[in-house]
């Protein structure tokens, strides 16, 4: 699969025709529309739809975005991003509040959250330092081994991770006079961080660091020769991606109100890779597109499989087959399909 980013550039005629503002708006019409829909969603949809479907999708999107950032811009497909999110989630439960008084320290959120994020970022940077010395396909092996090791650790360890039971009752904090546990504030909190991480990733992809990272992806030897520290760029990319994943992980714990080995296990890591690849590693929005497809499938596939007379328990096969179809026929994911469709319709319009 080529990880090269394909940038869709508008045709010259279009550019000259329109003013700067309306041009910007037309280029980003889709994303602006999506943002508007997400903003007014709580007014029209039920609690279940906007929190458990869209909120959950945006959280997965943030974590998948960290994978997309590493894979798409850095060429490093890491399977440990869900693990980083899990580390942050577990640390919030350990340092903050939970139903386990003999493990949790019950520190206030403004202490627990930064500590959790710092530990997760350190863990992510360590993962990066380990895998950045090897290249390409080795990264998948090493990060998968790390993810699996963490999963078995959480499963076996009782003093810190409370074994397979994990932590329950981890409430979102009450801060600035708002109880973030309630669906509406939590939804907007998630939306805020999803939008923020999307914009930041988009910004970094065009900033010097992001450009250098893409250079490292395309030709590490040449970048080394020009004088860039390839390993340092890779580790820094891992650290930044870990920051995103940590935010996603903490939101995930607050939304689900629990964390256990199953929520950060091997299956979860692989599902995250599926989300990122199905969405497309070519553009940050791909992570969110993949996440919403995944969550909708996950929520409604069981019923619809039964409705058309199939066994609803074969949900995992359906996910696997969708993933295989995308990898086999559209390596750049749904975003790639969309771009090709746009290019074709645009081509058709200019020809007529």
């Amino acid at each position, binding site marked *: 699969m080529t990880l090269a980013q394909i940038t869709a550039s508008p045709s010259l005629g279009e550019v000259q025709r329109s003013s700067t503002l309306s041009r910007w708006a037309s280029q980003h019409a889709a994303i602006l529309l999506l943002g508007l829909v997400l903003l007014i969603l709580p007014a029209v949809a039920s609690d279940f739809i906007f929190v458990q479907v869209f909120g959950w999708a945006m959280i997965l999107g943030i974590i998948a975005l960290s994978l997309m950032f590493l894979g798409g811009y850095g060429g490093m497909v890491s399977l440990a991003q869900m693990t980083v999110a899990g580390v942050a989630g577990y640390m919030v439960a350990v340092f903050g509040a939970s139903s386990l008084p003999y493990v949790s320290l019950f520190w206030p959120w403004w202490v627990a959250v930064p500590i959790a994020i710092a530990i997760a970022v350190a863990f992510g940077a360590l993962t990066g330092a380990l895998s950045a010395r090897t290249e390409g*396909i080795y990264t998948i092996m090493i990060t998968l081994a*790390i993810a699996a090791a963490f999963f078995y650790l959480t499963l*076996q360890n*009782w003093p810190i991770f409370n074994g397979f039971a994990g932590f329950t009752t981890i409430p979102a904090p009450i801060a600035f006079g708002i109880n973030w546990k309630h669906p509406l504030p939590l939804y907007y909190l998630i939306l805020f961080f999803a939008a923020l991480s999307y914009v930041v990733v988009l910004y970094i992809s065009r900033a010097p660091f992001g450009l250098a990272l893409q250079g490292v992806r395309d030709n590490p030897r040449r970048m080394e020769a020009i004088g860039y520290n390839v390993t340092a760029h890779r580790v820094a990319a891992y650290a930044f991606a870990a920051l995103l994943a940590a935010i996603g992980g903490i939101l995930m714990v607050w939304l689900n109100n629990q964390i256990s080995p199953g929520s950060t296990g091997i299956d979860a890591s692989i599902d995250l890779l599926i989300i990122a690849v199905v969405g497309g590693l070519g553009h940050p929005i791909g992570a969110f597109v993949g996440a919403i497809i995944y969550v909708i499938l996950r929520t409604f596939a069981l019923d619809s499989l039964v409705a058309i007379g199939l066994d609803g328990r074969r949900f995992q096969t359906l996910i696997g087959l969708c993933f295989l179809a995308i990898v*086999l026929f559209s390596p750049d994911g749904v975003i790639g399909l969309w771009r090709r469709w746009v290019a074709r319709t645009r081509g058709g319009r200019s020809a007529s």
Partner: protein
Amino acid sequence: MATAFGGENGARVPARGDALGRWVGHHPIAALAVAVAIIVVLWLVLAPWPTGFEDVFGRKRLFINAIFNGVTLGALYFLVATGFTLIFGLMRYVNLAHGSLYLFGGYMGYEAGEWTGSWLFGFVIAFISCAIVGMAMQFFIFRRMEGQDLRQTLVTLGLSIVFSDLMVWVWGGNAIQIDTPDYLMGPTPTPIVVAVKSSGEAVFLQYPRVRLVIFVAAVVIGIGMWLALHRTRIGVMIRAGVDDRDMLSVLGYRVQLLFILVFAFGAGLAGIAGIVGGTFQSISLGEDSHFLLASLQVVIVGGMGSIPGAALGAIIIGCAEQLGQTYFQNYATVLTFVIMVIVLALRPQGLLGRR
């Protein structure tokens, strides 16, 4: 495999002993550390422990059992990981469906055993059925995306998801235990002293016969593979393919056929390992990712694409896992993880891997 090729400038293929001597010459401190470690382990296993020693480290029986379990578990890991590393070495993609092949082999061997009542016949069925699946995967899918290693790896991932779900469908989620045949049941006495009675009489270790037999079988398979790789024509082709498959193809060898054969063999070994695993422990849902992880760790520690590396890595990981479970249960996986980290930090290509 790694040592036999010698250095980059090796016009002459040096003998094995030669390479070992040169390695000792180049790394005297590492060689000394390895020698001391081997002597310490031998002493710990063979000598009766002094009384003060047992107070600190616990009973010797515990330690010896952990070591024996670790080494025999290592034999199982070797069977799984060697196919994985062979496929990786030749075809350059990570077969993340390898754990599914292991599980599939175990189930097929179980079915064959139930049907015919023969444990050994199960091995034949498991090998053949997994080899057929492997050949089909290579022929229908991977051949079509030659050189796109990331895409191939992602496809193996998708396949592993579908396979494991289909296997749950057929065999359900309950653990299945494969019965040990009567002639391998029961313990075998070994000449290792685990304790000394107050009367001065030595107590010898009794160990399950089936595990010892499997260990010997794994060693025989390992030596057989080494001989096949170094003494047969097809072995030369495989080694040449590992080094430069384009060149091999240009020279007129049928590389695709070779790929299919190697994939079939690696998958078949995973299938055999499935029966061994089902006899040692049990096979159930989730074991596929357990053994995929084991293969990954073995290959990362031992060296990617190297068969002696897989053997070394399997013993290290097997022992680390068992010792960890015996002595610090809550942090057992941390031990294997730390070993992996140390190896990656000092030798990113693995202990016996090549750059």
